[in-house]
């Protein structure tokens, strides 16, 4: 009979959360096995994305020297779109051309692969193309390892770090948490559109490795709660749109249709004209926020990243929360191991305390009401964009009508659509949600 191998720790998943956890534990001298179902780390994470320097810098201070970074972001545009037009704000500054830029665009497939190479260098054993199918438990219900979809596929460990992403199937299957509801997850669809570097530079007014991010909301989501985005990579742009699964279900709108509509919008189409679609991907995002965070630890296990609903939908921050939670989980485990403590729930509780003290939980708490507000007030995505663009058009058109009359007609249109009470309530709701 073949012996089951035993490790100090098993990490499920090689996304930002899993990689951070595996890296820290391997550096801490633990014998770590990391299991990823993709062909290589990042294979399943084809999207381009924004990387926030801070979280990765804490793990790999000199990441800028070797990580595959596309462009650093010097300009952020926020657009409110209706069907034909948009109003927007933007911030662009040369100060973002700093020595150690704060935000980058990346292609996840390449970034995750690079991150994984650092994990291997630190001494973790990384096995890909292997799916974890369940958790092994002892008679008392403590987690003691995992089973996989391969022959002789069981391995044991003192502790299992669940970093398997938004679906968090392993945790649900093992009864460690309740199943996700459609209200807690958004579906994002995304394309990478290939264009020569020079074309991107010209269209977005960029030079060197400068990059632009456009965040957009409005009628493009066909009345559903959601947002769209466009990021510039080296020689491609990432473009995508996402809405809550529950909204897709009720509206019957197909995600891909939304993306096509967004791409054809008069403000977006010229930016991507002539580009060749290289990749299409659909991926879920945990957008339930603070209230959806599950139990984070137990006997022999912890959960981090998207699997723990650690995503800040408002600021589209996810990978940094994933890295931070992965790191904190690992630091907890390394410390416990150093003290020779068993990996029990009471030992691993320190992970939750560390998270509570970090920006991760603080930020999620701040926005805890937002998912509900947006979900139940769809006019934020329908009426307001139209009212705003109409207002802008009315004010900007010079046609002999006095400004005072124009203001009146704009206010009138807002009142007619939402009513005075409605307007006041909207403002109040948004304020509370944002507080």
């Amino acid at each position: 009979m073949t012996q089951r191998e035993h490790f100090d720790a098993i990490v499920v998943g090689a996304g930002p959360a899993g990689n951070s956890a595996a890296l820290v534990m391997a550096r801490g001298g633990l014998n770590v096995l990391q299991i990823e179902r993709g062909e290589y780390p990042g294979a399943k994470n084809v999207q381009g994305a924004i990387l926030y320097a801070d979280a990765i810098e804490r793990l790999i201070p000199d990441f800028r020297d070797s990580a595959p970074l596309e462009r650093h972001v010097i300009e952020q545009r926020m657009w409110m779109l209706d069907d034909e037009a948009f109003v927007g704000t933007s911030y662009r500054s040369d100060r973002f051309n700093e020595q150690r830029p704060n935000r980058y665009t990346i292609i996840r497939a390449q970034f995750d692969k690079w991150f994984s190479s650092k994990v291997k260098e630190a001494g973790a054993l990384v096995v890909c193309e292997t799916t974890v199918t369940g958790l092994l438990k002892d008679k008392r219900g403590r987690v003691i390892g995992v089973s996989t979809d391969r022959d002789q596929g069981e391995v044991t460990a003192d502790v299992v770090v669940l970093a398997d992403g938004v679906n968090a199937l392993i945790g649900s299957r093992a009864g460690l948490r309740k199943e996700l509801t459609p209200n807690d997850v958004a579906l994002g669809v995304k394309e990478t559109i290939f264009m020569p570097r020079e074309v991107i530079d010209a269209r977005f007014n960029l030079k060197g490795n400068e990059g632009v991010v456009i965040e957009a909301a409005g009628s493009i989501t066909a009345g559903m709660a959601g947002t769209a985005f466009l990021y510039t990579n080296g020689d491609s742009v990432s473009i995508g749109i996402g809405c809550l699964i529950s909204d897709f279900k009720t509206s019957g709108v197909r995600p891909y249709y939304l993306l096509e509509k967004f791409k054809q919008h008069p403000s977006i189409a010229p930016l991507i004209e002539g580009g060749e679609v290289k990749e299409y991907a659909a991926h879920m995002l945990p957008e339930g926020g603070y209230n959806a965070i599950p139990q984070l630890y137990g006997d022999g296990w912890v959960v981090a990243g998207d699997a723990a609903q650690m995503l800040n939908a408002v600021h589209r921050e996810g990978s940094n929360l994933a890295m931070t939670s992965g790191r904190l989980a690992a630091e907890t485990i390394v410390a416990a191991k150093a003290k020779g403590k068993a990996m029990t729930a009471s030992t691993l509780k320190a992970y939750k305390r560390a998270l509570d003290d970090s920006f991760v939980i603080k930020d999620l708490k701040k926005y805890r009401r937002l998912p509900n507000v947006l979900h139940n007030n769809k006019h934020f995505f329908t009426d307001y964009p139209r009212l705003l663009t109409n207002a802008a058009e009315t004010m900007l058109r010079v046609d002999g009508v006095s400004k005072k009359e124009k203001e009146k007609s704009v206010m009138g249109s807002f009142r007619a659509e939402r009513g005075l009470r409605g307007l006041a309530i909207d403002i109040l709701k948004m304020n509370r949600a944002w507080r």
Partner: protein
Amino acid sequence: MSQGLNMVVCIKQVPDSAQIRVHPVTNTIMRQGVPTIINPYDLHALEAAMALRDRLGGTVTVLTMGPPMAATALRKALGHGADRGILLSDRFFAGADTLATSYALTSAIQKIGESRPVDIVFTGKQTIDGDTAQVGPGIARRMGLNQLTYVSAIPTIDQEAGEITVHRRAEGGVQVLKTKLPCLITMLEATNVLRRGSLPDMLRAERAEVETWNAEAAGVEDIGKCGMKGSPTKVSKVFAPSPRAEKAKMVEGDTAEAKARVAIDALAETDPQLLSVIARQPALAS
């Protein structure tokens, strides 16, 4: 008691050609970020070798010539169940055509055979980047192995007698060939499905040290026969196919029926014989 078969499988790491782009401005190849894969045809060779190992025992050594990153391909093969991986890597090997490739691989296979003679060398039918189907025959010639190309099945093998029969795809049919070991087999696609390794296989593969041989370690006798130097063919240019000068003439019409009629007129105008050619076609339906 025999120790089973000593088999070598040649595999090549190739760019996933589906993902290669040509820069529209500079017309150069954009390989950045293009993932590499094991040449798909070679996977059939690997499985065929492991299937023989299941039958008669023995060892399967995977061999590749390529840059250091080709070690990934070997590790993958180990994860599928191969026993040993050897990477042939040296700057002298760069720029090799099929003649030079088969020379270098032959040296390495002979080296592998020093401890125990090699019974069968496997290669894929062809690569998807070079696409020549010539490296296998090249190795067979150089080593004096009996050459069996486009093999779809290996019905019998008798190690005592040193005999093997194979099915070989030929034009219009299948040849049943019998020959003696040692031999070289190039495996046809769609003949088998590569097995998934067990978890212990995967762990072993990740931990394994891939043996890297330079020209000297591989026992290469004449460096001049390797790499670009040893390649009689030279690539003189690489280019994207030029667009045809004229684009298609678009058929106008308000309805599908109108378009169809106009299209037939246009075809008949360019090729006045066309309709009578069609009328003469054998399989005419009512």
